C-alpha cells in the first residue's frame, strides 16, 4: 500500500482553490450542480429551519424536561407486562381479522373501480370520475377515514374493517388500473378477433396478463393493512391500537411495551411473509 501524501488524504476538508488555476487538491463535487447553487441550497435550508423553529414556538425547557421523562417511561416499560394475555391476544387477533377481511373486500371493490379507471377500457367521463375518486381517496389518511366510519357505524371493528376496505380498494384499483393500461394489445386484439364481447376480452385477454402482478400487489396490501390495523384503533376503530391507546392514557407503560413489542413482531412477520410470497410469485 502506498503511503498517502497529506494532500490526498485531506479530501474531506479540502482548502478552497481557484477553479480556473488547475487545482492541486481534489475537491468533492458540489451537490446541486455548482458550488454557488450548493451554498444557496444550504442557506435556504438554514433559513427555513430558523423560520420553522421560530414559527413552531418550541419551548426548549420543556423539550429538555422530556429526556428524563423518556428515561422514566423506558424504565417503567421494563419488564414488559405480558400478563394480560387475553386483552393482548384479542386485540392482535382483531387487527389481523380486520386486515384479512378488509383486503378481500377491498379487492372485490377494486375490480370494477380499476376497470373504470383504466384509460384504455373505460369511456372518458367514467375514466375521469374514477380517477378523481381514487385521487381523493388516496389523499386522506386512513385515520381520517376511520373517524368518519366511526361516526357512521359506531366504535369498534366494523369501522376499522370498512376503513381498511375503502383504503385497500383505492390502492388496489390504482395499481390494477395501471397494469390494465399497460396490457399488451396484441392479445386483446386476438381475443376480440374471435368475436369476444367486453366480458370475454376482460376474462381471456386482460385477466391472465395482470393476475400475477395483481396477486403480488394484493399480498403487499394485506401486509400494509396489518400495519394500518394497528393504528386506526386510536380513533376507536377497533384492533390493537385501541388497547394501546387505552394503556397509554392509563400510564400503563409496561403493558404498552408488551403491545408495542407484539405489534413489531406482527408487522415484521407480515412483511417477511409478504416478501416470501411475492418472491415465489415472480
Amino acid at each position, binding site marked *: 500500500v*502506498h503511503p498517502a501524501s497529506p494532500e490526498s488524504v485531506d*479530501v474531506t476538508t479540502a482548502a478552497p482553490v481557484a477553479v480556473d488555476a488547475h487545482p492541486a487538491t481534489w475537491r468533492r463535487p458540489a451537490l446541486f450542480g455548482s458550488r454557488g447553487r450548493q451554498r444557496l441550497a444550504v442557506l435556504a435550508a438554514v433559513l427555513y429551519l430558523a423560520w420553522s423553529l421560530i*414559527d413552531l414556538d418550541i419551548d426548549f425547557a420543556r423539550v429538555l424536561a422530556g429526556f428524563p421523562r423518556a428515561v422514566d417511561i423506558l424504565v417503567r416499560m421494563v419488564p414488559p407486562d405480558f400478563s394480560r394475555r387475553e386483552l393482548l391476544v384479542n386485540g392482535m387477533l382483531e387487527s389481523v381479522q380486520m386486515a384479512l*377481511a378488509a383486503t378481500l373486500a377491498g379487492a372485490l371493490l377494486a375490480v370494477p373501480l380499476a376497470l373504470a379507471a383504466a384509460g384504455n377500457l373505460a369511456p372518458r367521463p367514467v375514466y375521469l370520475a374514477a380517477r378523481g375518486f381514487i385521487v381523493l381517496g388516496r389523499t386522506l389518511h386512513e385515520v381520517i377515514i376511520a373517524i368518519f366510519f366511526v361516526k357512521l357505524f*359506531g366504535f369498534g371493528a366494523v369501522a376499522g374493517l370498512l376503513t381498511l376496505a375503502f383504503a385497500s380498494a383505492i390502492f388496489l384499483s390504482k395499481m390494477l388500473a395501471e397494469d390494465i393500461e399497460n396490457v399488451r394489445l396484441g392479445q386483446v386484439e386476438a381475443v376480440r378477433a374471435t368475436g369476444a364481447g367486453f366480458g370475454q376480452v376482460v376474462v381471456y385477454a386482460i385477466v391472465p396478463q395482470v393476475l*400475477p402482478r395483481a396477486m403480488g400487489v394484493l399480498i403487499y396490501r394485506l401486509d400494509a393493512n396489518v400495519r*394500518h390495523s394497528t393504528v386506526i384503533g*386510536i380513533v376507536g376503530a377497533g384492533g390493537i391500537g385501541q388497547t394501546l391507546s387505552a394503556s397509554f392514557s392509563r400510564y400503563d*407503560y409496561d403493558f404498552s411495551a408488551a403491545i408495542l413489542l407484539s405489534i*413489531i413482531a406482527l408487522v415484521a412477520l407480515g412483511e417477511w411473509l409478504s416478501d416470501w410470497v411475492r418472491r415465489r410469485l415472480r
Partner: protein
Amino acid sequence: MSDAVAAPGAAARHPRVWRRRSRRASLLAWLWTAILAAAAAWSVSALDIEWAFFADAHEQAADLATRMWPPRWSYLPRVVGPLIETIHIATVGTAIAVVFSVPVAFLAARNTTANGFTWAIGRALLVGSRSVNTVIWGLIFVAIFGPGPVAGIAAVAARSVGFLAKLVAEAIEEADRGQVEAIEAVGASTAQVYLVGILPQVMPVLIGTTVYRWDINVRESSVLGFVGAGGIGIHLYASINQFAWQQVLIVLLAILAVVIVSEAVSARIRSRLS
C-alpha cells in the same frame, strides 16, 4: 400463479378443448381461493359485526353530507397557521431523520457494518422504527414531551429513520466495489472510505427517498393532532367532536389541497432527479 402454461401431459394427448390451466394448476388456484375465502369468512364472523348498522348507514352518510354543506369559509383563515405547522412538522422531522438514517444505514448494511453484533443492532433499529406507525410514535412522544409539535417532529423522525435507512442500506450493499477499493488504495481511513467512496454513490437514493418520504410525512402529519402531536389534526378532531361539520369540511379541503400539492412537488423533484 403460472397460467397459460400447458402441462406436458396435456400437450401430448392433444386435448380437443382449450384450457387455460393444467388440472394441477387449476386445482391449486381453487385451493388458494378456498383458503382465502375461509380466512375472510372466519375474520368476518369473528368480528361480531352488527349488520343492523348497515341498514341506515346510507341515510346517516347523506345526513352528514347535508350537515357539511355549505363549507364555513370564514373558518379558513384559522386553519392556515396549523397547516403551516403541519408542513413544518413533516419537513423538520424528515430532516432529522436524514441525519440519523445515514449512520443507521451504514450499521445495517452487511458490507459496512463492523461485525455481526453491530449489524443486528442496525437491523433491530430498522425493524423497530418501521414497524411502529407514525401516529403510535406520536402517542409515545406526547407522553414524553407533552402535547405539541415537538412530539410530532420526533414521531415523524422516529418513523422515517427506518424507512430512509432501509433503502440507503440496500443502496450501500449494491455500491460499486471499484470506487471503494480506489479510495482504500490511497490509504484512506474507514471513515474516509465511507464518506468519499460510498456516500456519494448512495446520495441519489438518499435524496430521492427523502423527498418521497417527505410527502408521505405531510400526509401523516395531518393526523398527528389526533393524539395531540401538533398540526392540523387537532382542529379536525375538535371540529368533529363539536359536530361543527361545516368546519370539518373546510379542514378536509385544506388537508386535501396541502397533501395533493406536496405530492405533486415531490413527484416533480423526483422526476428531475432521475
